[in-house]
């Protein structure tokens, strides 16, 4: 089973609007989830500039807006469930 790709946007807009929180929470993922995701930090994903709802996270190919530390976990779980 392939790992799920989680790309957290670290562009300045996303970082200031809550991305820093996401970065802090990644370490606290439960181990069974941590092992199944490939987390990376991306430069600006380019969607925030005109309006938009930062912070953005890209899960596999899906771009999700206004992610919070609780919703991040939820989205990862959903994606894992769909992958099965």
């Amino acid at each position, binding site marked *: 089973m392939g790992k799920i790709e989680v790309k957290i946007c*670290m562009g*300045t*807009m996303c*970082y*200031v*609007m*809550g991305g*820093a*929180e996401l*970065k802090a929470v990644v370490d606290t993922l439960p181990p069974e989830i941590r092992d199944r995701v490939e987390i990376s930090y991306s430069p600006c994903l380019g969607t925030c500039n005109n309006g938009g709802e930062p912070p953005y996270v890209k899960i596999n190919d899906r771009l999700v807006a206004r992610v919070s530390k609780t919703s991040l976990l939820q989205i990862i779980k959903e994606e894992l469930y769909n992958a099965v």
Partner: protein
Amino acid sequence: MLYDNYAMLTKRELLIRIVKLLKEGNLVDGVKYIPVEMRPRDDKNISCCVHKDRYIIRHKIISILGFDIKNDEDIDLMSLSDYAQRSLDNKNTKEDILSVVHESCNACMKSQYFITNMCRGCEGRPCMMNCPKSAISFKGGKACISQDDCVSCGLCAQVCPYHAIVYTPVPCEEACPVKAISKQPDGTEHIDKSKCIYCGKCMQACPYGAIMERSKIIDVHKALTDPNKKITAIVAPAINGQFDATPGQILAAIKKIGFDDVVEVALGAEDTSRNEAAELVERLESGQPFMTTSCCPAYVGWVDKHAPALKPFVSHTYSPMVYAAKRVKAKDPNMEVVFIGPCLAKRNEADFVPEVDYVMSFEELGAFMIAYDVDVNSCGEQELDAEVTKFSRGYAMAGGVRNAIVNAVGDGYKTMNIEGLDKKNAALLKAMVNRPAAQFIEVMACEGGCVNGPCSLAPLTLAKRQMKKAMER
């Protein structure tokens, strides 16, 4: 602490929108659209209706533009565009460092013990039996607390077998370490300036974001863009915890916004360490039992207003901000200086330091970076001042000033550090006057030190990690 809450993000979004408009030169016209854009009619209103949401945004904008928000009549009669124009014309004369957006603040009940409808009116009635003030009576088979008699001891809540009694706190009042914020008869909060130490705890605690700080972003932006003015940013060492980048990259990123120069406040910390170490040795030799640091302005304010007996023991050495600003002004007296840091109390300290012209928070810096399209990680390296040691950058973390002083005087002295001014630490500090526990005491009002300041961008765990990484580079 309320990280990850929308009230905090609302403030940041407002700052970003306002700096973007400033950059486009469109503040006066553009500002009037912000409330409608941020609070569209979409049935997702936060308060009773969309109009109140927009009205609250309006108040917050006026505060960020640098005006007092106490007088509701002015706010209703003047348009946001008028305010923006007045702000650009240097008429933004707000003095209060913290002010309450009254429109937003009134949702909290007075803090009290409250009997919920989980109360079963049992025969045991331990709440009534145990209440030392006989404040509980039974009406219609349910307990009822007479708020006039209740002293909020909490015994009733402890003994209720159904957990039917809850405590409803007022978050800002709970967070304030010096009881400077309290309710007025109309239900809104009032900050008593004679008690406030500007630690920023209330601002962080309010779930409505109703407490706004004084902002100078309009003035800083004007200095940045005025061809006749030169402005240097002096940046607190805590900046190294805010981004996952090298200190050189961070300085380069700030310079890219358009500052004529960027200087690490850590350079001023070199002067503080040297002078404070000499002062410590001198004081101990002259027979004084101990000395505390003076670089945390919230602590210094606390001593002034709440623990005057400690005053003779606080170091007279200037804070790193002051030394850094003095260095800049010594080189070029016409240079304007903006201090950028995670601290609210620095805004108060700077009011008394002629060398510092403006104070900006890391949140405001973030807004400038976004508006000016600056990405820290893609910036090159600015050359670092060779005089700055890791001890000076370490000032930002609890224990860092102590390390720097020990490094300067040697480890023959008994030292300690205190982080946070909660009840326990306040009592501990006050007791030092009679029974000093160490010869050198570092005090920081924020738990964890400046990296945990009320105006920072990164949460503490991340900031600490990034800070350590930056120090190793």
